[in-house]
């Protein structure tokens, strides 16, 4: 990696980590193991994933507390809600929740009515805000959405073809010339990428990184589609004897391609599978060419 790229990466990493700083927008305490005693004021939320935690008599948690596993002995005050999904919560005589108690599971002991200022939501009793019943979209609305999506991607294809023609060409060559390898790589990268996103999000601190990963995966798939449509557009125009400027062919190719893709993915069962295969192939090609930076050349064999 050259010096400039490394500096850019470090700056990006620094920016992401800045959101996790002590003076940042969000603060929390994560407890995964061991014995802990919280005294005084604890800023932000507290998440308990394991171990034993004790909230002292005069201690105050300024945010919400989530107990997913482990044990919490509550003698102090929680200003927000207490959400309790598993493990054990023991209320001391001074234990106080200013918000609601959301009880999903686990052992709850010594709870007194006056310990909770808000309401106690247990089991299916959690009150959800009233949401209007979702109705399926009318075919017209779906078509409009497809047209808008296809037009936007068509415009993006024109921009990419104008400024990154080499990148697009390398990706499309990988998709069209090495479809099977691209598909295999895409399936692998997709499965691993999504798992990595989930694991990263699970750490809570790295949620911004997980979001970035998700955006990257999505961008790679869309870039792969566009690169293919840019390559296929002129071929289709040639066979259909359509005589337009190259920009309009790129736009038209992407537009028609996206519309076809949208229609295909609406086919029950097979549509979903085809959609996954096409998305994986695109992702794989982008991955193999490092976003079109380099040409993909498979390993060669000795010839006879």
């Amino acid at each position, binding site marked *: 990696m050259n010096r400039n790229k490394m500096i850019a990466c470090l700056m990006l990493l620094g920016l992401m980590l800045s959101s996790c700083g002590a003076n940042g927008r969000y603060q929390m305490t994560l407890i*995964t*193991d061991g014995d802990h005693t919280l005294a005084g004021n604890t800023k932000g939320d507290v998440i308990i*994933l*394991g171990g034993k935690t004790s909230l002292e008599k005069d201690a105050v948690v300024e945010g919400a507390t989530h107990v*997913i*596993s482990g044990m919490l002995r509550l003698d102090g005050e929680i200003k927000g809600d207490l959400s309790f999904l*598993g493990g054990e919560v023991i209320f001391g005589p001074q234990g106080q929740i200013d918000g609601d108690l959301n009880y999903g599971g686990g052992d709850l002991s010594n709870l007194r009515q006056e310990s909770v200022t808000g309401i106690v939501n247990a089991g299916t009793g959690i009150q959800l805000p009233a949401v209007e019943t979702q109705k399926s979209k009318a075919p017209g609305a779906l078509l409009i959405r497809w047209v808008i999506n296809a037009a936007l991607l068509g415009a993006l294809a024109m921009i990419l073809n104008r400024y990154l023609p080499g990148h697009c060409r390398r990706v499309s060559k990988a998709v069209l010339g*090495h479809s*099977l*390898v691209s*598909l*295999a*790589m895409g*399936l*692998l990268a997709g*499965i*691993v990428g999504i*798992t*990595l996103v*989930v*694991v990263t999000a*699970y*750490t809570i601190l790295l949620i911004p990184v997980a979001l970035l990963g998700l955006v990257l995966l999505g961008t790679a798939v869309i870039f792969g589609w566009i690169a293919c449509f840019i390559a296929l557009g002129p071929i289709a125009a040639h066979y259909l004897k359509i005589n337009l400027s190259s920009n309009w062919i790129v736009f038209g190719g992407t537009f028609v391609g996206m519309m076809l893709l949208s229609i295909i993915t609406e086919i029950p069962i097979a549509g979903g599978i085809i959609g996954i295969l096409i998305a994986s192939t695109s992702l794989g090609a982008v991955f193999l060419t490092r976003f079109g930076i380099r040409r993909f050349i*498979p*390993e*060669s*064999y*000795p*010839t*006879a």
Partner: protein
Amino acid sequence: MQNNDSNLLTHTHSINFPRIFGFLLFVGMMAAGYYYNLTFVQLGLEDFGTNWLGLSEISIARDMALLAIFTCFIALAFGWWMMHRGLGRQFRVKLQISFGVILTQTILTAILPVVHSESVFIAWLVLVSCALGIGVPVMFSLTIDLVPVKQRGVAAALVTASAYFAAEVLSKQWDFAAYREQLLLVLIGGCLGMGILAFLRHPWLDILAQQHQQPAFAIGRFVRTKTNPNPRSSRRVIGVIVAMFGIYFVDSLGFLRLLKVPGFMETTWQSPIFSERLFIAGVHIVGALIAGVLYSALTERQLYFWILGLFALTHLQYSLHIRATGDMGTVLAFPMLYALAVSLYTVVNFAIWADLSTPDTIPINSALGVALSAWTATFLSTGLAIYWQGQGMSLERHIQIVDSLAILLFLALLVLAFLRKPEAIT
């Protein structure tokens, strides 16, 4: 005139039946052999030692280590002997030795229930080690006779997919008796088939016996490069052995502990719900096919990055899960990633030793590779996993160590990639 075409389907404008037969023979033989090792040897013997002989975990760990070391020794000695006798080029002799190996395994599998003490069990293990140790260089060296270089990824993918699919779908109970019953049928069928092939003459077998002379079969893809047409594989063999040892070690060390956690197994690999086991079997097939395609397209270093990265991620997942919920059941995403990683490296293992060899070096290279990395690593880590559990090491700590090892190996590969000398460009 020799036919150097590496395509299975064409042979002077017609379907090349002998070549297809050879390809399928290899896939069937290796899949059955791997299924035997995967189920009966790796899981069944431990169950036999624990539940039939009443041995302690430490004793089983010691016995399995003995099996590993002895198998390794026999494989190396036999591989070296084969190389010096030029048996890598003797297709018919290899078939006859394979028949002997399968026959021995059949007899040993059949008589295991008469073993009632640890000393007899050790003697039985020594005999099994001999059969396995001889089987490794012989059967792996058949790759060079039966599978053209271009199709080795596909062949390895089919072997892996078949073995894991059968192991997952057919294994309702992971116990020695159930495995023995199933495998005796497979072994008896294998004995008959291999006996016919080894001792009868048929023109197809004569054609297969000549295939190793064709460049499309003889020279593995890693043996020569465009810049250096001379074979240069010794350093690469050592590198691959070290990498594969690490991969096998990490896999077995983690899995052997995970399978002792009923909460994990009952919701995944040993689920009473058939569709859940079918899902894992399906992942093995998809993973094997992905690996089969990528094996031909990527370098071995890139493949190792993926495999070790997958193992690191899988164990990290388990680590986080254990911290949060203890040994509560997992979702299918966990075994999915595990199955993917396992399928990837198994495919590489079935294809790479032949691709690092010529007909002369295949016996010793496959012995070095399979025995020194796969067998030794698997059984040493099995022994270590059993020992740690016997010493009372917590599940969380165990999985943390495995995850650390996987990450360490991944980083080591990164460092090696950074330090390597660029190849000459002509």
